[in-house]
């Protein structure tokens, strides 16, 4: 079953205007790497960029297993640019 990934406007612009993706993936990392903008989400070492925040069904993945958080399918993943600087 596919999960839904919602991306913010800048990433959507870089993905040809699409802000909603349906992907089959066993983990958050796999889902994010399937996106056409994965190089903006991860740096060249494969690490999630520090100011990218990811929620799975409304829960911050940092409170779970980070990008290794497993997916069962049907979840909604939302990427949010961290709020910094006021």
């Amino acid at each position, binding site marked *: 079953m596919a999960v839904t990934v919602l991306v913010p406007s800048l990433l959507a612009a870089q993905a040809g205007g699409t802000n909603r993706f349906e992907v089959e993936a066993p983990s958050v990392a796999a889902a994010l790497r399937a996106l056409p903008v994965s190089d*903006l989400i991860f*740096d060249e*070492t494969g690490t999630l960029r520090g100011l990218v925040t990811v929620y799975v069904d409304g829960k911050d993945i940092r409170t779970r297993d980070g990008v290794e958080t497993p997916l069962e399918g049907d979840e909604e993943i939302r990427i949010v640019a961290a709020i910094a600087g006021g």
Partner: protein
Amino acid sequence: MAQTDKFSVVSAVILAGTRKGLFLLKSDDRRSWSVEDPVLEGWDVFHAMQDLRDGSLYAAANHGVYGATVHRSTDGGKTWTRSEGLGLPEDSGLTLEKTWHVEPGRDSEPGTLWLGGAPGVLFRTDDSGESWEVVQSVLEHPTRERWNPGAGGMCTHSIQLDPADPNRMYIGISAAGVFRSEDEGESWTPANKGTAADFFPEDRFPEVGQCVHKLLLHAGKEGRLWQQNHCGVYRSDDRGENWERLEDNGLPSAFGFPLALHDAKPDTAFVIPEDEARGGEVGGGNRVTTGGRLGVYRTDDGGKTWELASNGLPERAWVEVLREGMASDRDDPVGIYFGTKSGSIFVSLNEGDEWFEAARYLPAVLSVEIGELPS
């Protein structure tokens, strides 16, 4: 309006990279400029330029969350393609922090461009930016441990190819200094003799570590280089082997960032001093135009003397013009263009004799270049 052939009419375009995307300003007469809606919204466009070999536009763009990249447009800025996967090799232990400057390669290498970035890195593409290869000789330079970041990071911001020798090129890195390659980037020799690092009081003239702010080569006089440095304005006539400091001769401060040259006159240069650095004092503490005056200074004698060339510019203005913020065209007389962090673009169509404001209320201007696009 310029007519290049029977069918194409072109407009001049100012590419103004800003903190909030790229703005294209178009003009048919270079006097009246229209500001188009921004493109690359959301990106800090550190530098945008037109590759005159094929007309493509390139933008070195950065984002506080999504990292550093390069965008290319082949349709005059309507649509853009991003260079994917730009980064440093894992074994370097470094990650790409920022992209700073895109420089077209030689006419004989139509797909080749060079890209400078932080931390002190250089990339090369041979496929018009689809893929970039890091230049290992810069990444692994034996003096790297003596390089330090300036206030803007350790940025490779100046890349100059010598038309007199297809293998010779130069880079400027803050704060590492100027480096020259005689083998098209395979190896690099520090070229900082005579360039002061006044912020190192125990060794003011080290081999490397100088804080070059902008480096330009004059194509019309072999061996002629200019640089605006943290510690003075300099000229070299021997490919950077030796540098002559040009001050106490009309410049109100040694500190500044932008630099522009005159295409046909190797002895002419333009700078915009900041702060109040005189007599060897290290500037940079107050990065606004010297004396609260927006002063463009021009030399026509190789830097022996400088004169204020600011007719039409505001006399009371505390502004910043960044290292990529000034450009010159190849018209006769030469046009000079610069942008401020307070969002204005100023233009002189007569080599600095008179200025006018072409646009205002833009976001902070990070870079200015001039090009031409179909009307």
